[in-house]
């Protein structure tokens, strides 16, 4: 039994932690969030130089060959700084799909470019009606000779406005919500017929709605097998969910630490408000809520790393607990800061908003609880 990180993982974590500490203070982040792209390309280059963009990729493509634990340590630190740069969208989703389902040519062309920081990617999977069911897809991909023709619309595409390349989940056969018949297609963001509408979310990131109007790409740009996209995206999303939980853990830790600090210094009735037992018990609750998330996260990562049978249930459970405990933690953080907690100026609200966005990504708590129930209790 061992819950320690390896030396390499420790170094990776320290390297991200140092960057957040030195170059990502709250004011800097605020400026980046207010910029047109809602992220900094300069930082992205730094990520490349520090080798972070290579972490999950196979060594044969110039990657670091890292596993879920390596992703975990990085994402937790990103969470502490509410880092805006599109690591999830470009490396874990776009890169993850290529790594898992891409052809040798696709991988050889794109993965090195991701690693060197010259290709930003996005995974266009959501549609207006999909909510948490990602197989609910109306965008069509039809074969015409050696071409694929895409029509439809994707919404809330993370990094969608800045990405150079997209992987689009489209329907090539089957009914609207079927798992079968989904085809993943690589589409250059500047292809004819692609139109992007950018807008900003509460966590600072800029997303896009993207319409596809008779967009034509060669069939060789399919990622994985035609109609079998679900098999490629499911494991990538499962891993992304764990990565997001790690980011959430970093956020929760910050919220708890900052709140604790505040209650030790803020005085009312001539004493620090942290001396009130009514508040102490609630901070004990949020402390425990944090520890529980951490435990379940480690459990999920161990299952994933060892390809355990219980990985799916673990990840559903993790999403449920992140949602529930996250709400509890940011709710208490705001409440215990009193009026200060309601200001835009304080970082507390910004941590809260990122947690809220994480909870709506790849299924909210209720969605995952229903999935968990199905796995565990259906006859």
């Amino acid at each position, binding site marked *: 039994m061992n819950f320690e990180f390896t030396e390499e993982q420790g170094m990776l974590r320290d390297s991200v932690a140092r960057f957040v500490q030195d170059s990502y203070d709250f004011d800097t982040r605020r400026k980046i969030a207010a910029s047109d792209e809602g992220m900094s390309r300069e930082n992205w280059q730094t990520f490349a130089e520090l080798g972070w963009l290579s972490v999950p990729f196979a060594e044969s493509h110039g990657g670091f060959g890292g596993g879920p634990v390596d992703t975990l340590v990085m994402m937790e630190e990103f969470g502490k700084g509410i880092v805006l740069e599109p690591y999830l969208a470009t490396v874990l989703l776009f890169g993850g799909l290529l790594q898992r389902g891409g052809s040798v040519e696709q991988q050889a062309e794109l993965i090195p470019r991701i690693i060197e920081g010259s290709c930003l990617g996005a995974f266009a999977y959501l549609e207006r009606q999909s909510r*948490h069911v990602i197989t609910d897809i109306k965008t069509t991909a039809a074969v015409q000779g050696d071409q694929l023709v895409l029509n439809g619309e994707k919404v*809330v595409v993370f990094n969608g406005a800045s990405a150079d390349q997209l992987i689009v989940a489209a329907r090539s056969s089957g009914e609207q919500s079927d798992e079968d018949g989904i085809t993943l297609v690589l589409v250059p963001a500047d292809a004819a017929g692609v139109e992007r509408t950018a807008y*900003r*979310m*509460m966590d600072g990131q800029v997303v896009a709605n993207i319409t596809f109007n008779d967009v034509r790409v060669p069939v060789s740009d399919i990622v994985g097998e035609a109609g079998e996209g679900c098999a490629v995206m499911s494991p990538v999303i499962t891993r992304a969910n764990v990565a997001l939980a790690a980011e959430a853990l970093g956020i929760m830790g910050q919220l708890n630490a900052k709140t604790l600090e505040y209650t030790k210094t803020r005085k009312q009735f001539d004493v620090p408000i942290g001396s009130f037992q009514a508040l102490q018990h609630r901070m004990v609750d949020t402390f425990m809520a944090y520890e529980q998330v951490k435990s379940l996260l480690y459990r999920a990562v161990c299952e994933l790393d060892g390809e355990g049978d219980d990985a799916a249930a673990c990840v559903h459970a993790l999403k449920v607990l992140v949602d529930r405990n996250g709400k509890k933690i940011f709710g208490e953080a705001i409440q215990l800061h009193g*009026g200060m907690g*309601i*200001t835009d100026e304080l970082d507390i609200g910004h941590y809260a908003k990122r947690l809220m966005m994480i909870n709506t990504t790849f299924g909210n708590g209720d969605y995952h609880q*229903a999935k968990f129930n199905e796995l565990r209790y259906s006859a």
Partner: protein
Amino acid sequence: MDTSFAPEDLAFRDEVRAFFAEAYDSELQARLNNLETFKEAVIDWQKRLYRKGWIAPGWPKEYGGTGWNATQKFIYETERSAAGIRDVIPFGLNMVGPVIYAFGNEEQKARFLPGILQSDDWWCQGYSEPGAGSDLASLKTRAVREGDEYVVTGAKIWTSYAQYADWIFCLVRTSNEGKKQNGISFLLIDMKSPGIKVNPIVSIDNHHSLNEVEFNEVRVPVANLIGEQDKGWTYAKALLAHERTAIAGVADSKRSLAETRAFAEREVNGGKSLLSDPLFQKRLSDIEIELMALEFTELRVLATVAAGGAPGAESSMLKIKGTEMQQAVQELRMEVAAYYQGVLPNDLTPEQLGHGFGSQARQTYMYGRASTIYGGSNEVQKNIIAKAVLGL
């Protein structure tokens, strides 16, 4: 025990409904929803209520109240919420007005009450300070008497709508002798006075309603002192119970829950509406059940008040439960909006965006975090109940 409405109550309800249907028109609603026109639209609406004679249901008839009984007040509130109409801006009508008619002199009543009733004066509340929130009595903004003026120096914070205000009612320190509650006075200050500076505070919902108000040797005529010097705490306390009862907003929560339910019914995916999802149903009914009870808790408090009693510690309970329920509804609506809850205001139409209510849900939810903090935080309310009701 009987809560059914008499025929005259039903007639009253129809009258209220008819008035709202006509007076709260869509043109006005559009102006209320636009930040640029918000202030003048609020004034316009409140003037319509004034002309109808319904602007101050809580006031005694002699000062411009409606003379309604508890049932009528309940009906009015319910219909207002059901019509989706915001409550009046409370600072003048629900806060300083009652203090002035209860504790002000005749001259003050004549000078200030008409402007409040007719919404010609916009008031704001200058109680909280950076160092005095829950512990309000520790406030430090001081007023020193010089001849027939007070000279006021200090800072107030979280002052809602100070940027619109013509007047601010303030608690200021006039003495450091004895208990800290004893040296506080209640002053009415013209916001145009030299030495006042208003600094905006952007809140977590990305809007600007909060402010910091600085006072730098602001000269205030002694004629603007309410009641006696050093007795302001007594006047302010009398008002707090009213404020809390008003914050509960049960009728508004009911309406909001019904709307949320309708939104959920329209969210269809995987061939099923969200409303048919058992987990969602549980969330919905958890809230509805609490609200069913809370509605009657509110009626019980109203009945006590109508019978001549004062809303005491019950108002704390209404405030706690009421705000918890508001937040629960706001949160549920966010769940219905799913990822669209994150959308910040932009120039896109709902058609372009693909969604209608996400951004509004977020704004209400984020600002809604404040309801358990202002008006005496819910923790402080629990302390009051523990002490005053449970004798702990």
